[in-house]
């Protein structure tokens, strides 16, 4: 078994296509967030990508979500730029309404048959204007909105859909011809036929996602019979501002605002009776999020979540739960609900449940939300069969711990929910990881099938009077629900230099990009302002849009009227509108002073540097080297291996030590990887594409030049201060137990082992969940049972967080008689030592909630599931790299949802436990993901740097040297004639020098004194708040 898995890994990285050449293109099946991310990574690193999706638009489930946990980011807001990027990427071809029917060939060169259903609307011609839908007389069920409202036969699934082209529902269409008559673009063709397309690709990535569990199958909860029992996805649509009720939380039966809402967890998850023995991993969090958002929408709502274990095992999730509980008053009730009955008069619902102490309760609720789990759909099953890809017993794609991205078929990779239930960041991580796996397979044909983007020549606007265009966004109702957008538009039209102003429903949608480009041409605009969300997320999108219209991208300004206006003044419509006007006026004042800037092209050193030689670091090093990039691997300890050295088996029964040995051998054997063990980092300087790191080993120092950095510093086991650890050899940590289990046979004389969970996790000193301990505890408990079946094993826990397929081992552990006792964080167990007959006996005292008594368990061994903590060195490294850590001391990624391995600083990436505690499988995925993100830089010979670089007016400079002392980058020096001069590539444009120059001889472009003071002046004629 082992040898075949290793061989397969080798096969993927080496030339498998002995006959026939490799092809530099990739098929991605599924256009959800996973498919989109993998497509973008691949396209950015030199591959042609085909995205095949069976629906009419990409976006998948994420497009249906209202908000995302744990940041409450608006799902559409963060997804939309990616949709647009994917839709407009030159090397990504999106095939909608399509299905893969057959593949032939092998890794490196596949032929794929794709069946494309007719849309009856020509995507190339349709502008998405929606006139057709206005005239369509047919009502059909809107499946995007889960049937909560109707749509027309000709429709788009959602307003930001990519491609933004309508589609005719052939089953509902009556063929009246109205749409065809009104369509000005002549896009409608009733005669379109089903098409068959053949694609030639080198690799295939499966990202088909999953479907939600059919709640009707659990008939005791009344879904489908009672109108006020809805699924969580339906509720997500109810919450959504662009949903059926425009974000008003109301009951489907009568439109009343529900006061009491019950969320029932684990519907179709952790339930062998419906065949789904696994945990769907995301429901506890999404239910909490939905409860919080519902409360936010309507403060009178009282949400209750009925759950079995609260699984908040992700980064910063527990803090979110605490906030939900304490700040939003979400009630969490631990129990499984047995039945939901409708009260016929009010159509409210009576819920029957039993609490832990065995008492029966009945409670009435106005609305019930079923937190449905996830399972692969039947079409995916068919697809897997067509492809010859093995599935596990639940119908998910079969993968192995050490190869989480590989399917059973070489050249076919998998990411996202299809391999196991997971959340968005993990899906995005795996998506990038899949791209790196493809990179390993196809690196020799990289860049062979891609087109390069050609922008039109830049218009010369120098000396022209400003002609400003202002685009004000409604953002659905995110802005428009608070700010009076039309009045802001009318106001903008009165401002100096503004020649055009308009409003958009979603300024970020791809059709609006076309509108912006057209208006630039139509009105000869030479400055553009978008008043919408934050420039931090959306500026690059709009900058590219105006660049496509021939304007320099710096002739753009944003007014943040959402994040810093409508969202923070939700109940002050008038004041928010006035503020929005002010912000637009300030933007207009600045825009009038904007100048075009040129970006500098920088060379990229095609080498990587990886900090940390544990599992993640080594996987990332190999992933880079096997794509042909030279890599430095730095480890502070003498030996490679990191935390993995403490792990001797996995839940699935694999052998990590054997894998580790093989991995170390591969790293050492790879001539592109240079390892440095037992070294310290002294200094890191430079910028994306051109970093220099000074390392010291013994007394020697060396300098390494590289283009990217991957941080893989790992995590450590917490050394417990509690439960008398280190005072008695019978009190040990989980990893010490694992070590004993692997080296000695556990004595059958051990009568009883007590394992205590959450030691140092989820407490005041470490308020996070260490994620892996529940699985580890069960793994070792099962091992004890295997070696010594008579030994009694007790696991004292707070919530068993065996998410995903690990749940099946939790089930098995219970079957084998392992006893689980829940303890409360306020009533922690106590380890008690007693002297009896000269022998010290050990026992654990714990409050048993089911019998409601304090009990004492004799223990021959007490095992502490100690937390995973970040290494101390993180703090120093973070300062050196100038990247942030989160409150818990783990590295903080650029965005919790969609940029899980990036930092805000370009060219630096993170993976493994340096980011947060995670499993072997997840670390490996993230390491590949970091390598993939790195490859998007390393594959380019040149990258564009910022155009904001300090300029010094030599005539005004007196050579005082203030700027030279202050510049944090040493970018300013004195030249021959004694005046200051800037080394452009070193300058980061912070503006410190400009603010300190006594002669005001230094300019920070794009943030000049003139531009900034014009913004503050714009407020002179202020309107009262």
């Amino acid at each position, binding site marked *: 078994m082992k040898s075949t898995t290793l061989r397969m890994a080798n096969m993927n990285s080496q030339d498998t296509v002995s006959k026939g050449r490799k092809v530099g293109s990739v098929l991605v099946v599924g256009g959800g967030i996973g498919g989109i991310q993998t497509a973008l990574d691949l396209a950015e690193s030199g591959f042609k990508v085909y995205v095949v999706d069976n629906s009419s638009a990409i976006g998948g489930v994420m497009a249906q979500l209202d908000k995302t946990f744990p*940041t*409450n*980011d*608006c799902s559409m807001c963060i997804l939309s730029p990616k949709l647009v990027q994917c839709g407009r990427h030159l090397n990504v071809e999106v095939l909608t309404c399509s299905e893969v029917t057959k593949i032939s060939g092998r890794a490196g060169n596949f032929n794929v048959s794709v069946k494309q259903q007719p849309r009856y609307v020509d995507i190339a011609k349709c502008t998405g204007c929606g006139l057709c839908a206005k005239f369509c007389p047919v009502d059909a069920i809107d499946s995007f909105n889960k049937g909560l409202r109707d749509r027309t036969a000709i429709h788009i699934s959602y307003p930001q859909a990519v491609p933004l082209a309508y589609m005719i529902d052939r089953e509902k269409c009556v063929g009246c011809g109205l749409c065809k008559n009104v369509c000005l673009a002549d896009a409608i063709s009733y005669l379109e036929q089903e098409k068959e397309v053949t694609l030639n690709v080198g690799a295939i990535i499966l990202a088909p996602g999953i479907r939600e569990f059919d709640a009707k199958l659990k008939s005791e909860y009344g879904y489908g019979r009672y109108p006020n029992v809805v699924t969580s996805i339906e509720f997500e649509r109810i919450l959504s501002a662009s949903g059926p009720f425009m974000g008003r939380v109301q009951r489907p039966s009568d439109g009343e605002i529900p006061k009491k809402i019950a969320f029932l967890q684990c519907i179709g998850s952790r339930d062998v009776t419906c065949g789904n023995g696994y945990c769907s991993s995301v429901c506890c969090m999404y239910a909490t999020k939905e409860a919080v958002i519902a409360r*936010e929408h309507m403060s009178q709502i009282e949400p209750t979540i009925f759950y079995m274990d609260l699984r908040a095992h992700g980064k910063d999730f527990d803090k979110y739960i605490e906030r939900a509980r304490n700040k939003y008053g979400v009630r969490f009730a631990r129990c499984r609900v047995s039945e939901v009955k409708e009260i016929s008069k009010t159509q409210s619902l009576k819920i029957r449940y039993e609490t832990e102490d065995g008492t029966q309760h009945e409670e009435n609720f106005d609305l019930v939300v079923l937190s449905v789990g996830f399972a692969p759909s039947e079409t995916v099953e068919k697809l897997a069969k067509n492809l010859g890809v093995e599935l596990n017993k639940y119908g998910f794609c079969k993968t192995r711990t050490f190869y989480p991205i590989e399917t059973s078929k070489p050249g076919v990779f998998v990411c996202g929910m299809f391999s196991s239930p997971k959340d968005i960041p993990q899906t995005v991580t795996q998506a990038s990881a899949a791209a790196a796996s493809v990179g390993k397979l196809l690196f020799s044909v990289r860049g062979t099938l891609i087109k390069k983007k050609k922008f039109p020549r830049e218009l010369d606007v120098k000396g022209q009077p400003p002609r400003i265009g202002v685009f004000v966004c409604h953002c659905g109702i995110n802005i428009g629900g608070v700010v009076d957008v039309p009045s802001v538009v009318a106001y903008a039209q009165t401002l100096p230099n503004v020649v055009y102003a308009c409003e958009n429903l979603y300024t970020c949608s791809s059709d609006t990009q076309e509108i912006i480009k057209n208006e630039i041409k139509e009105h000869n605009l030479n400055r553009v302002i978008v008043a919408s969300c*934050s*420039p*931090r997320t959306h500026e690059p999108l709009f900058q590219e849009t105006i660049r496509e219209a021939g304007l320099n991208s710096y002739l753009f300004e944003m007014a*943040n009227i*959402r*994040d*810093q*206006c409508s*969202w*923070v*003044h*939700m*109940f*002050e419509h008038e*004041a*928010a509108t*006035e*503020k929005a006007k*002010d*912000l637009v006026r*300030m933007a207009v004042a600045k825009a009038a002073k904007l100048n075009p800037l040129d970006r500098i092209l920088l060379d990229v050193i095609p080498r990587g540097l990886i900090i940390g030689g544990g599992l993640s670091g080594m996987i990332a090093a190999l992933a880079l080297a096997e794509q042909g990039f030279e890599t430095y691997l730095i480890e502070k300890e003498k030996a490679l291996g990191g935390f993995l050295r403490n792990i001797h088996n996995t839940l699935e029964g694999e052998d990590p030590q054997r894998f580790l040995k093989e991995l170390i051998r591969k790293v050492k054997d790879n001539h592109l990887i240079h390892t440095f063990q037992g070294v310290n980092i002294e200094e890191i300087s430079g910028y994306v594409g051109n970093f220099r790191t000074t390392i010291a080993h013994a007394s020697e120092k060396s300098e390494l030049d590289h283009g990217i950095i991957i941080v893989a510093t790992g995590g450590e086991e917490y050394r417990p201060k509690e439960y008398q650890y280190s005072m008695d050899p019978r009190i040990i940590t989980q990893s010490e137990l694992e070590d004993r289990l692997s080296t000695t046979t556990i004595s059958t004389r051990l009568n009883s082992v007590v394992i205590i969970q959450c030691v140092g996790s989820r407490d005041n000193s470490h308020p996070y969940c260490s994620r892996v301990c529940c699985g580890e505890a069960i793994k070792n408990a099962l091992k004890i049972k295997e070696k010594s079946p008579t030994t009694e094993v007790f696991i004292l826990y707070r919530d068993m967080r065996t998410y995903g397929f690990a749940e099946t081992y939790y089930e098995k552990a219970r079957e084998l008689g392992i006893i689980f006792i829940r303890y409360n964080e306020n009533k922690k167990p106590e380890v008690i030592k007693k002297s009896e007959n000269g022998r010290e006996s050990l026992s654990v005292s714990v409050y048993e909630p089911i019998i409601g008594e304090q009990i004492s368990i004799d223990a021959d061994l007490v095992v502490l599931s100690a937390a995973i903590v970040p290494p101390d060195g993180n703090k120093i490294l973070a*300062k050196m790299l*100038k990247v*942030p850590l*989160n*409150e818990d001391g783990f590295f*903080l990624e650029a965005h919790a949802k969609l940029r899980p391995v990036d930092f*805000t*600083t370009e060219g630096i990436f993170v993976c493994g436990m340096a980011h947060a505690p995670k499993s072997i499988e997840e670390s490996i995925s993230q390491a590949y993901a970091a390598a993939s993100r790195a490859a998007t830089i390393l594959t380019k010979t040149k990258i564009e740097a910022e155009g*904001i670089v300090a300029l010094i007016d030599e005539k005004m400079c007196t050579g005082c040297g203030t700027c030279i002392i*202050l510049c*944090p*980058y040493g970018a300013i020096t004195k030249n021959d004639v004694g005046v200051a001069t800037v080394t452009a590539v070193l300058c*980061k*444009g*912070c*503006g*410190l020098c*400009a*603010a*300190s120059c006594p002669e005001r001889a230094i300019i*920070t472009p794009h*943030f000049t*004194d003139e531009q*900034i*003071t014009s*913004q*503050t*002046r714009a*407020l*002179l004629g*202020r309107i*009262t*708040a």
Partner: protein
Amino acid sequence: MKPAEKEWTPKILAFLCNWCSYAGADLAGISRMQYPPNIRVVRVPCSGRVNPYFIIKALQRGWDGVLVSGCHPGDCHYISGNLVARRRFAVLKDLLEYLGIESGRLNFSWVSAAEGEKFATVVKEVVEKVKALGPAERLVKR
């Protein structure tokens, strides 16, 4: 009789650094933390970009208070810009007090990208403080 005038509320100008405080202000929005609508934000690359001249100019133009917010010490995206800024504003504050400008009109804070709630609190505090001081007229050019 004169019609009842609206209650006076201060106008406050905020310079937020792009990397920490501006992101913190965004986070306050994402988390829907409500704060008074008296503040207008100018985005700057670094708190170190803020020239004391901008602040004096703002007070001359009738702003009632100014907030400059940057990264926490050690977090500065540009290594040390925030620290230079702090030294600079300590001096400026003294100068303004000498000119008879109450020290509460010039505020400096550290707000990180993860501190949406702190940002909202800072704004509330600054607005309260300046409200208590009343309109700033000393430097206003007429």
